[in-house]
């Protein structure tokens, strides 16, 4: 009983510190005159930040960038979800791959691979097009707002798809059938019935992608900054990381608008998804929705889907492998293949900073995910099983960080850590990571706890097992799948983490994604590709090893 009463307040304090502290520091920092000097109230930072002549253009860029990528991602997701759930398209397993695998490719590498493909001077696709059609200049310039929207939209496609596809397959088909009976064609039914009924899911997808792209830093830094197209995230980065004096106060002042927009949108999102549950009718009749025959369109549409999966998964990885082997960025040719060597690989493996960042990222991934999952177990337990007012507070606190744009929260943490001995240590990154990515651990564990009915524990007690034995024999084995997926999600997120790290990492605490960003800024594409492939290999290894260990653990518990 004592443990229970102490657990909730302790967790509220801990999670509250992790999520509220950076926000408070951000507010305090934005009203203070200097990095280290608090106490004097001033609005000078706001005046400086919001009278910047480039600000209006930056805000317009942000608006177009976020809305554009949201619309692109949602339209593509709708198209794919409809084809998957409602038509007789062949080879549907491709949809599973499209919706999951791009999450495993770090965003910064995805952005970099598109620079390699479509940059105006030596982009591989541009070169090929010029040779093929005899063009004078490159047909597509990735360093543009439309280039940014294209890449960000493709990056956020999986999120939009995972929101829309379940709503589409849970759709009550009789709504459509009655429209058909009323004399409407397939297309008319789609426009007049299906899409309007799915509106909450569609809006939710648009909003979530807007929030994600507002927080995105990979695309604005790798694609936007070389083209001098600044959005909120890269604007804040410019204030703290370039120029002579980093002005964290001013960055905080700009960050306040990003934070306010983000929290507002997430509230709207939660409102919409809550209302959406009443709106989208879920049929419990247990038969599959009627499949629409595509007839002659079957193979052309399949070709489109196949091309999309090629563009989303195969092309980026292939480009990185290819670039890591060629001496400089060049279109594939006999000459390019004859010049291939391991030069970039040996340079990366001999570069002390790259090796350090490799080591740091692995440590952060392993330690951070382990600590994060441990914290998540307790948080999820309180949220699901204790269910007091305190548990409600804890839940809101946990999911607050879901709306935080990484770079803004990084500035908040920076303002905090500079006052502690943690400044410039891996601990600073570790704490920041866990704070920002806590929902990724809590979500799978909450659903694991929901599945453990209290009767399962109680019947073990009645069968003669004391509480600790019940925990070991019943509760933990049932939690292992949730712990494993939480660990995998957190570990892969931490190994590739960029937005928080660009603010928090100092000399000595470089991490992989930051080192890759440095290579991109210096135009060292070969080394970038080599290090990037190492990063993908590490992430995939972590996923495989964790799943194997998880399966072993579950089996051991059954036997033991």
């Amino acid at each position, binding site marked *: 009983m004592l443990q229970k009463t102490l657990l909730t307040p302790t967790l509220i304090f801990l999670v509250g510190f992790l999520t509220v502290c950076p926000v408070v520091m951000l507010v305090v920092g934005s009203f203070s005159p200097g990095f280290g000097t608090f106490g004097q109230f001033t609005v000078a930072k706001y005046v400086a930040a919001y009278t910047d002549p480039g600000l209006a253009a930056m805000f317009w860029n942000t608006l177009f960038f976020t809305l554009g990528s949201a619309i692109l991602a949602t339209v593509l997701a709708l198209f794919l979800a409809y084809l998957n759930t409602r038509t007789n398209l062949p080879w549907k397993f491709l949809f599973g791959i499209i919706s999951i695998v791009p999450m495993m490719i770090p965003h910064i590498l995805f952005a970099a691979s598109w620079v390699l493909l479509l940059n105006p001077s030596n982009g591989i696709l541009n070169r090929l097009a010029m040779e093929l059609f005899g063009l004078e200049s490159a047909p597509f310039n990735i360093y543009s707002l439309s280039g940014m929207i294209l890449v960000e939209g493709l990056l956020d496609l999986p999120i939009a798809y995972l929101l829309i596809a379940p709503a589409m397959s849970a759709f009550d088909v009789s709504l459509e059938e009655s429209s058909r009976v009323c004399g409407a064609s397939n297309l008319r039914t789609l426009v007049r019935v299906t899409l309007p009924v799915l509106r909450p899911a569609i809006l939710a997808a648009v909003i979530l992608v807007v929030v994600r792209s507002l927080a995105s830093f990979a695309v604005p830094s790798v694609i936007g900054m070389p083209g001098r197209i600044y959005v909120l995230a890269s604007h804040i980065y410019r204030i703290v990381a370039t120029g002579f004096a980093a002005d964290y106060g001013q960055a905080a002042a700009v960050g306040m608008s990003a934070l306010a927009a983000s929290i507002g949108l997430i509230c709207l999102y939660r409102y919409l998804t809550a209302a959406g549950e009443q709106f989208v009718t879920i049929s419990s009749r247990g038969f599959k929705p009627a499949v629409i025959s595509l007839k002659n369109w079957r193979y052309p549409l399949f070709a489109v889907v196949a091309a999309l999966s090629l563009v989303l998964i195969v092309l980026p990885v292939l480009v990185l492998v290819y670039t890591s082997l060629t001496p400089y960025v060049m279109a594939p040719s006999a000459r390019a293949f004859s010049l291939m060597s391991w030069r970039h690989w040996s340079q990366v493996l001999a570069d002390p900073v790259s090796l350090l960042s490799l080591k740091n990222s692995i440590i952060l991934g392993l330690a951070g995910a382990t600590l994060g999952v441990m914290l998540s177990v307790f948080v999820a337990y309180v949220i699901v099983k204790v269910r007091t007012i305190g548990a409600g507070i804890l839940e809101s606190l946990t999911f607050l960080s879901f709306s935080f744009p990484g770079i803004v929260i990084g500035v908040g943490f920076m303002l905090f850590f500079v006052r502690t001995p943690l400044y410039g240590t891996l601990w600073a990154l570790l704490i920041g990571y866990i704070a920002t990515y806590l929902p990724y651990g809590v979500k799978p564990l909450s659903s694991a706890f929901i599945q453990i009915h209290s009767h399962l524990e109680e019947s073990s*007690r009645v069968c*003669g097992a004391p509480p600790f034995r019940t925990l070991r*024999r019943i509760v933990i084995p049932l939690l292992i799948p949730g712990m494993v997926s939480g660990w995998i999600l957190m570990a892969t997120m931490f190994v590739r983490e960029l937005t928080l790290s660009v603010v928090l990492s100092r000399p000595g605490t470089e991490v992989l994604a930051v080192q890759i960003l440095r290579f991109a800024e210096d135009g060292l594409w070969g080394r970038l590709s080599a290090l990037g492939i190492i990063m993908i290999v590490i992430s995939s290894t972590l996923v495989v090893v964790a799943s194997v260990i998880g399966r072993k653990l*579950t089996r051991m518990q059954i036997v033991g």
Partner: protein
Amino acid sequence: MDIRIRSVTKDFRSEGKRIRALDEVDLTIPANQIFTLLGPSGCGKTTLLRCIVGLETPDAGEIAIGSEIVWSRAKNIYLPPEQRGLGMVFQTYAIWPHMNVFDNVAYPLQNRKVSQEEIRSRVAKVLEFVQLEGFEKRPATDLSGGQQQRVALARALVAEPKVILFDEPLSNLDAKLREATRKELRRFLTELKITAVYVTHDRVEALTLSDQIAVMRAGRIIEIGDPKKIYFNPDHRFVADFIGRANLIPGRVRALDEARAVIASAVGEIVACNRQQLAVGAETMVCVRPEFIKIVATGAAPVRNAFRAKVESLVFVGEAYEGEIRIGKTLLTMTVEPTVRINEGDEIVVSFQPDHCFLLTP
């Protein structure tokens, strides 16, 4: 082993309000009987069961199982559930999904440090008893509802407890399976000579399974008795109403002898059983169940408790007609055999069998 419950009280707090789940419950559950706690949802029957097994702690009182006190506020005794040595079947069955049938059933023995060999033979024996031989290796997730129920029963029985507790174990089965399992359970339990405490809100389940029934309402036990007493001759109006359909006719005692009481009511004078030994002139309530109102054939010999009635409505419900009749201004329901030929609007003569007219304390 018998179970003795003395002045057990338990409050729940919900949204700032105190709800009394158990109100000074005194109860002795005799050994080697099937004892049912019956009542509507929220009457405290499950809370009482959970207090016996130790998953819930009362606020006051004392609970003893056999000679051992397992809970006492005054003596500050609390024996945790794992040390009470009971068996329990949960409403959800609580079959652990990460284990197969064998591991689920063997679990109580593993906790009691029984040798591997003995575990194997005892699990095999109990699985045979519940007719699940050969299911040892089956994953728990591959079982049907009825099979899960039997695995739960096997797990509760395997350690040969002196007391087994059931928390609405049939409510998750469909109607057909529920009927079959009910009979099976009755057979298992009578074969075993074990004290069984059974919680249900289903009156048919209670009547078919039990040796004794305790009817509960609002945290109190209202009446205890064997199924026939509870059905045919309850003392309380609530019990009469809850256990079956009942026509309740208010009246006043006019005359008495050893076995019979004559009641003056709006229907007329009714001869009823006199078990309560009421005084002449006392207010009372006559209860007669629909199946004990019979049609008197025209020209038949005169019977007691015969009344003229008008058929108001007649609904065919399968095995019988359900009729609504009016005697004077009083509406009553009766069961009419499907072979009897009457129509709505007919004037008939009905009789109440005196042995099945009983008096209730209002």
